[in-house]
């Protein structure tokens, strides 16, 4: 029943979106380069606006989400959620302009490595982040290296490469909004996200 409600809400949202802009919807042209990454299961609403007279506004459809952790049974999912289990800890923090993993995070890394080996169908996205200082694009690269460094640590412990994807959000997704070291140290981080969570 819960699932049914969810589906009908999703349908309603698609219909509502469509109603709001009936005249102006057109599919976005997507030419993919090869090899492509799989399309994300959920996507936010993005609009574009053409400047030429008569150009139609465009909008990308809102696709539904799912909340099943991929490749993990109920017991495994419960472990990931249990606040007393180290697997519920997902964040590795870094020093300024550094991407080396400090020893204090070794238990966390080992626990996730063991879990990923136990569930070889499970997949993680490792999201690297930086503080706000300096160039946005350099920070994109630095965040990528922080994600790669966690991937490397997991890989050394036997996790398969195809279970991990690394991406960077640079300085764009701060965990803390402040402009001082107290905020910055919370933002220099890699987050472990299990696919489907």
């Amino acid at each position, binding site marked *: 029943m819960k699932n049914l409600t969810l589906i009908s809400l*999703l349908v309603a949202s698609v219909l*509502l979106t469509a109603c709001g802009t009936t005249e102006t919807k057109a599919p976005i042209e997507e030419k993919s380069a090869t090899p492509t990454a799989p399309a994300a299961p959920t996507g936010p609403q*993005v609009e574009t606006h053409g400047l030429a007279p008569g150009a139609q506004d465009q909008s990308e459809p809102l696709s539904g989400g799912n909340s099943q952790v991929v490749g993990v049974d109920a017991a495994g999912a419960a472990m990931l959620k249990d606040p007393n289990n180290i697997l519920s800890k997902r964040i590795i923090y870094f020093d300024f302009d550094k991407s080396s993993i400090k020893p204090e995070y070794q238990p966390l890394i080992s626990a996730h490595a063991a879990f990923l080996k136990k569930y070889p169908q499970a997949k993680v996205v490792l999201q690297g982040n930086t503080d706000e200082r*300096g160039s946005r*694009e350099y920070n994109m*690269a630095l*965040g*990528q290296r922080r994600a*790669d460094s966690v991937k490397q640590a997991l890989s050394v412990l036997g996790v398969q490469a195809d279970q991990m994807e690394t991406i960077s959000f640079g300085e764009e997704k701060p965990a803390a909004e402040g402009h001082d070291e107290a905020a910055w140290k919370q933002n220099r981080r890699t987050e472990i996200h299990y696919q489907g969570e």
Partner: protein
Amino acid sequence: MSKFARLFVVFGLTLVALLPGYARAGLSIEIVGGAASRIPIAIAPFLPAGAQGDDPAKVVRSDLQNSGMFSLADSTGLGVPGEAQTVLYPQWRTRGADALVVGQVIKMPDGRLNVRFRLYDVIRQTQLAGFSYLIPANKLRATAHRISDVIYEKLTGVPGNFGGRIAFVLKHKGRYELQVADADGYDNVMVMRSPEPVLSPVWSPDGTRLAYVSFERKRPVVFVQNLATGRRIAVAHFPGSNSAPAWSPDGKKLAVVLSKDSSAQIYLIGAEGGAPTRLTRSGALDTEPAFSPDGNWIYFTSDRGGTPQIYRMRSSGGSASRITFDGSYNVSPNPSPDGRYLAFVHQGSDGFHIAVMELATGQTQILTDGPSDEYPHFAPNSRSILYSAHEGGREVLAEVSVDGSVKQRLSIPGDLREPSWAPAHFDLN
């Protein structure tokens, strides 16, 4: 977020999109510096007098004053001479004007406007320029900017940027918009809007497209958007991160930064996508590629030497030579369109500044005070640099002349960042 909350957000966005004129407020400009000697110029009201709201003279005055290169002589009480009358030079001379602009707007029977102006040298008592434009009525402001460009070029010897356009990212109330505006920030329009971060917009060399990075698919993806139609292509969406697009001067390729094979490395890819060619194999971080105007070189940021510095390699890849040596953090290279200068971000002991290097000599000058200046982009005339600055906890756009003498700030509610100049000599419509 619950499904219901998501639904509400989607509907809210749709409503906002339907509101006409949303987020079109003009930017306010504050001049924080100026050239040591400014050219005194009088700009008489254009005929017909009384249509003050639409008077191109007001736009021209604002353009020239904001450039920091001119001072405005008082023209009140001297009437509205129009462009056809004999100029009474002595009365302008007594107001201290070295130059004079007169003009008029004539409404044509078909609804179009004929805008005419003349620029005089008051001291030599000669005409320096005179032009007539036949334009649609909604192009009056754009035409005023073109007049400013003519005056600026005649009196300073350098083409003006007033008729140009800029793109930038606006972050406002948790949403991200790509906007395109006139060089003075007016007539800003949204071209893309997303609840997820958008960054690094860069204009194609023909002015018809913007490349940018969007997080809407839960990973950074490089898009190319056609500005006229609003349609777009995801040109780089490989596993991992895709970012830092830079156009080749012929507009056929993009240099991008991908992490699909290793940490951030530079690749070439077609402007419509396709298979990428890897250009760097450093094992370090290589990012922020920027082509030289002749297309032969790519400047980029790398930490291969231990600290982030700017390097240069052939645009086909291969070995790179280091360009910056002073300090431990020099990033975000942007070559000037005339090939003489390289603007970049330099970290000093007191924050991040915009610096400029004369490429022939390596001579470097720090142009701005910081503390968080980023994303320098040269204007098409190579005489000024737009950049992002922080002011009172907000992000604003700022501009500095290449010699550091003239500074301006542009602001609008919300955080403005990552400005990019449209190339010179194109008209979207």
